[in-house]
């Protein structure tokens, strides 16, 4: 074999191998062992500003904000070290007021970051990576991940702010709402306080900056953090957090929750007083008179709903749950036919949609998923139309009988607001709120279920005990108590698909014993009906005992 040929072939093989490894195998850096505390930090910011301009040459920078503020604080330096002041307001961007060109941006970051590091290192202080160690900052696989919890106000913390003496009231009155709540005048390009129109920041400050309106992140930081910092500068002790971990860290949030609890426990009624925004106690929900009379001869008919606004304020942490886009009445955007403002969701859907937490029925249905309720409610089909009696729980009285002497719904909806409110209050007061059920003594204590007793003995079902348990589950829950007022309602969990009655029909009336062939889509045969009725309830109510496969706990096996 000619020597040259052999060399050539080996060279070829090596070349192929080299090419394969060059493209295939990635260099692996040494991994430092992770410190437990460092696995998730709330102050981790990924700086990838240039990604909006071009494809990044290096991975985004992993920047730890709190680490830097801590270091600066030790040197008695403040935010203005990195954040420029613009018109008396701090710019949230780094060393600039706005983004210009890519090259300029890169220079700003490199010069300032590395410059500061170099200075500190020269002064002998602990500093970040110097010039040349690009990947120390542009780390493709940082060992630390961002672990930022969403932060915000809840009812308690909001009240702590409104109640705080540190936030002084404005000149006009006793309330300090104007310190945070504002509206914006686009013509004058200024914010101003509009009393009675306070709402959540999120109505205008959205997730992303839009047409000059700051994003929620920017607004919140500017509003909250700067105020807290200001207080801190003044030497106030209980000044609220201003570093990332203070709001977004899990430890801080847990501490805050505990503090809120202690604070509430110290209040006179042990509950937060009602938010003051001049909201009504009761609302009569009717259709909007501006929708007109409908087609001639076919007026709109909607039995009004008396809504207990005051009670519902207690059930939710904030107003946003229902007033999800604005504080106005729902029918402003959710019109009869649906409008663009309302996302084309019409009035009926807005009130009844099962999939939205903001709709009445949606929220109520969501509550049914709780363990106490799920045993019955998980198996009530959502595709069939609810019964009239269920509608009547909210649409209390037909329009004709609402006002003595009768009135049509169009007359009712044309009433003035004070009249409507009065009518709503009347209707609400007239409701019977006592949960009704049949007297337990009238109901059988045990029921012997003898059906299909082949392999097993008949089951002795502790009927009264189960009903008592269900009643106990409702107790204290206003929603459940309200909707289970009528006697026989709670029985419908098991005695279903028949009118409520003290002596409901037998299971075998509808569930046949033979033929497990599929006939009616969801009506099981008797064996499955009996088993699923009990077993499903146990499973969904998270009962560990009796286990579904522990047959003898419900019925003894027949000895052969």
């Amino acid at each position, binding site marked *: 074999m000619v020597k040259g040929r052999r060399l050539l072939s080996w060279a070829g093989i090596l070349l192929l191998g080299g090419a394969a490894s060059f493209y295939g195998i990635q260099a692996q850096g040494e991994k430092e062992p992770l410190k437990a505390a460092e696995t998730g930090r709330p102050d981790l910011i990924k700086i990838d500003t240039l990604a909006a301009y071009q494809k990044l040459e290096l991975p985004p920078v992993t920047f730890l904000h709190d680490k830097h503020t801590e270091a600066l604080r030790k040197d008695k330096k403040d935010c203005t070290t990195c954040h420029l002041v613009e018109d008396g307001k701090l710019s949230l961007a780094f060393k600039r007021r706005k983004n210009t060109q890519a090259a300029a941006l890169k220079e700003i970051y490199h010069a300032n970051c590395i410059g500061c590091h170099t200075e500190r290192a020269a002064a002998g202080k602990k500093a970040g990576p110097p010039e040349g160690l690009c990947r120390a900052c542009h780390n493709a696989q940082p060992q630390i991940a961002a672990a930022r919890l969403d932060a915000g106000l809840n009812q308690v913390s909001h009240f702590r702010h409104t109640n705080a003496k540190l936030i002084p009231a404005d000149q006009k009155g006793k309330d300090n709402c104007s310190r945070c709540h504002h509206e914006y005048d686009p013509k004058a390009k200024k914010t101003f306080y509009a009393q009675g129109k306070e709402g959540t920041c999120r109505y205008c400050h959205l997730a992303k900056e839009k047409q000059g309106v700051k994003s929620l992140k920017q607004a919140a930081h500017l509003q909250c953090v700067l105020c807290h910092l200001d207080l801190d500068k003044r030497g106030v002790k209980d000044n609220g957090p201003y570093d990332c971990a203070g709001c977004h860290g899990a430890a801080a949030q847990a501490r805050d929750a505990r503090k809120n609890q202690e604070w509430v426990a110290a209040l006179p009624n042990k509950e937060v007083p009602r938010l003051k925004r001049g909201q009504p106690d009761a609302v009569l929900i009717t259709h909007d008179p501006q929708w007109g009379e409908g087609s001639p001869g076919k007026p709109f008919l909607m039995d009004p709903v008396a809504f207990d606004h005051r009670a519902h304020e207690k059930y939710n942490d904030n107003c946003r749950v229902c007033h999800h886009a604005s504080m106005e009445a729902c029918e402003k955007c959710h019109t009869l036919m649906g409008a663009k403002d309302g996302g084309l969701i019409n009035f009926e859907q807005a009130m009844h949609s099962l999939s939205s937490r903001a709709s009445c029925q949606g929220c109520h249905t969501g509550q049914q998923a709780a363990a106490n309720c799920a045993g019955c409610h998980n198996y009530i089909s959502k595709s069939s139309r609810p019964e009239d009696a269920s509608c009547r729980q909210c649409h209390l009285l037909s329009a004709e009988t609402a006002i003595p002497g009768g009135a049509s719904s169009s007359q009712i909806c044309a009433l003035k607001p004070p009249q409507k409110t009065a009518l709503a209050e009347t209707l609400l007061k007239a409701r019977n709120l006592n949960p009704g059920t049949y007297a337990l003594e009238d109901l059988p204590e045990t029921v012997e279920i003898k059906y299909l007793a082949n392999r097993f003995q008949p089951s002795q079902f502790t009927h009264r005990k189960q009903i008592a348990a269900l009643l106990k589950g409702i107790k204290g829950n206003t929603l459940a108590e309200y909707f289970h007022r009528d006697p026989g309602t709670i029985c419908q969990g098991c005695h279903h698909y028949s009118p409520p009655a003290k002596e409901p029909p037998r299971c075998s009336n509808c569930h046949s014993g033979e033929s*497990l062939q599929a006939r009616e889509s969801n009506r099981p045969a008797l064996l499955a009906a009996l088993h699923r009725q009990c077993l499903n309830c146990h499973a969904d109510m998270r009962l560990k005992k009796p286990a579904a496969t522990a047959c003898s706990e419900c019925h003894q096996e027949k000895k052969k």
Partner: protein
Amino acid sequence: MLRRTFLGLLGAAGVGAALGKPARAAGQQHFTGYPESCGVLFDATRCIGCRSCEAGCNKVNELPPPPEPFNDLSVFKMKRRTHSWTYTVVNRYDLPGAPGPVFKKWQCNHCLEPACADSCFVRAYTKTSQGAVIWDGTVCVGCRYCMIACPFDIPTFEFNEPLTPRIMKCTLCYPLITSGKLTVPGCVGACPVEALVYGKRRDLLQIAHERFHAFPGRYLNHIYGEREMGGTNWLYLSGVPFRALGMREDLGVVPAPELTSGALAAVPLVAVTWPVLLTGIYAISRRKDKIARQETAQAVARAVAQTQAEAEGKLKSAMTKAEVEKKAAIEREVKKALEEAAKPQTREGE
């Protein structure tokens, strides 16, 4: 051939063509199942993992008793598959974040276009119009290609039977139902919570959709088996992703026969093309050899002729040369002789 014969053949061909059925393009066919075929709908949100179905199947099919009794739930520690003594198994899946364990019953899925039936070279499998895919033991050779072919790994083989090993798999209780002994398969009849429902496949699909509608959020909006591998008669509903239940989601919707029909279609093509191709190659190579031989012969003949001509020419020149030399020699000799003759005369004259 004679004109008559030709016309006769033409006529016969025409008649033959007219009698045939209309041709349909093979690629566009899509088998949607026999209209009355029945199947089973399994609902994983209902199954409680009691193994009554396994017990029921074992009983109606008179299978050998298993090592552990059917109410022994510790078998769930391991994931099991079907074996020659069990047509169906229930497996338990504990998923992170789920409120409780989820169970899955696994058995032959009775595909609309079964891979086992397609792959069997003695047609031991039949897809019945009732829906079941059944195995015929009177012709099975025991080659086990069906076990290779099944994408769900269902058919099992009696490896410990030396001379009469059988393929064992769920029969959808076909013999029992058609003979009237049962109205529903043994497993379906045994389930206490109706996690299994037996009926016409199209009804089952409808029921499944009704369940999706009635209980939104409870089910994944997918019926496993509706289209997988071309569709199966055993349909599955679940509230968790099917792959979390050990069911393959990457099988695609192409039925198994379509995977091999292309390769098989090439066979008659080869059988017809190769003879022509190879005979052609042979003819060409033979012709090449013949031409080569002829050219060689011609070259040889030319060479021979050339040599001959050269030789003749040489001979001729040699001959003429010899002639000339001969003449010259004769002349020389004559001259010599004359000289010789002249010599003694002079001697005598002295």
